[in-house]
């Protein structure tokens, strides 16, 4: 197994996902087979090759920092699962 159960537990935690014992087994197997497949890239000589993050030659697109009308607060809040006093509400964070 190229990916261990411990690895999967760790990345599930980083991804903010809970896994059942059954899912842990399943994802460990599946992620291992995909990572094994991806390991074929390790055979390629990439020394001195620049990485491509993005295909177009566009860098740092700026615009003027101007005040413009934006969306209506009430409209935005319609999609919020919980709201209070014109704000999105969340569980208490600071004691």
């Amino acid at each position, binding site marked *: 197994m190229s990916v261990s159960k411990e690895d999967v537990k760790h990345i599930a935690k980083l991804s903010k996902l809970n896994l059942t014992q059954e899912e842990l087994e399943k994802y460990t197997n599946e992620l291992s087979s995909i990572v094994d497949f991806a390991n074929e890239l390790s055979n390629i000589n990439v020394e001195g090759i620049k990485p491509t993050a993005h295909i177009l030659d566009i860098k740092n697109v700026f615009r003027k920092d101007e005040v413009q009308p934006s969306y209506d607060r009430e409209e935005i809040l319609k999609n919020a699962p919980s709201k209070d006093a014109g704000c999105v509400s*969340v569980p208490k964070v600071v004691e």
Partner: protein
Amino acid sequence: MSLYDLTLSEVAGKIRNKEVTIKEVLDDIYSRIEDVEPKVDAYITLTKDLAYKRAEELQEKLNNGEDIGVLGGVPIAIKDNICTNGVKTTCASKMLENFTPIYDATVVKKLEEAGAIIVGKTNMDEFAMGSSTETSYFKKTKNPWNLNRVPGGSSGGSAAAVSSDMAFAALGSDTGGSIRQPASYCSVVGLKPTYGLISRFGLIAFASSLDQIGPFTKTVEDAAVMLNVISGHDKLDTTSADIEKVDYTKSLVNDVKGKVIGIPTDFITEGISEDVKQAYDNAIDTLKEAGAKIEEIKLEYAKYSLATYYIIATAEASSNLGRYDGIRYGYRAKDFNDLDELYVKSRTEGFGDEVKRRIMLGTYVLSSGYYDAYYKRAQQVRTLIVENFKKAFEKCDVIMIPTAPNTSFKFGAHNASPLEMYLEDIYTVPVNIAGLPGISVPGGFGKNGMPIGIQFIAKAFDEQNLLQVAYTFEKNTSYIDKKPAIEEGK
């Protein structure tokens, strides 16, 4: 012949010339949907009330002698990961089941400005992750050519809707083949334009350096008409290319004399079915007879595209889907004790299996200790693939390969191994990796009657050559004339 049988260009002409009213066209499309949709399940949401209201407004304008646009009154479907103001946009996920955008994607705005009428939002793989539309949270879309088989994915609903005449065109999105592969499986035209040609503003992000919006149509001509409408620079998308507007319908010329078609024989080897190979060989003959020059080319790094893709796409997805935290919009779990539990439970309950798999894979390849071995290396191989194509295009105008190695498969065929399903994308993924334009055109049928697509690929921003070759191929074959039975089969 019913109105719904017409192409987009034909029906737009009939509306403009007042041979039919927009309401008559819309009636015909919705009655077609009533007949066929229970069998095909292409749509998540129908927007009938809005559509009829718009039809009335457009007809009034037309009757007053106003120009209602090149798509004036034409019913069109939109993939459900493209934001529509006031109409639910779910990404076929429980996470966004009740999400209603408060703005239109730029492409939707452009379609409406050109007079199009949106008839509904189409089914897809959850967050566009999949090759069969089976990962949708809501329903399974069936292939109109055989209801026991998948329509392809992730834009399976859009492909099936156009294939079964439930819309004259549809928008999809293509990250690794999600327009071209379902177009191939459903025998329609599917175009993935050059990265940057179409604004992604309002497209719910999967893998931002690969995602691109494009049209499904019944003909190459219609694809050019749609591209004219939706292309162009947008200041709301910083990756949108600021280039001069082109009239793509000028490329609709039935002539490939002097054009050089590249055939990457070293790439088209493993895993290809006999039927697809046969259709491909026939396609080479068709273009040769039409006067094209066939040139063998090498794409030695293309075979590494899939591994590269599944590292880059999942890495970007793990980052993009971090925004679904149950706070501002989207699904929020009911029971939680603190903020962290709210995040974890909302994401665990809101995302489906394939989405979780890809988020975790992406998190893995970006995590400390693996970044250089996977993510950085994949980006370096991406450079090699880009250069590979550049070199190939020194010798040819357009590259031709099959769209998919096989025809459509049965539901559940790849349940046991996600990797096996990923391999179906081998011929479409390199195009996204290199940011190139690609189009799938109906190219034949297998022995089992299922459609086969032929894919053309051109240099970045050379949609003109791409469309001209695709158009010539279409005009010298008759595959688009065949219509699906919309019945169960083997």
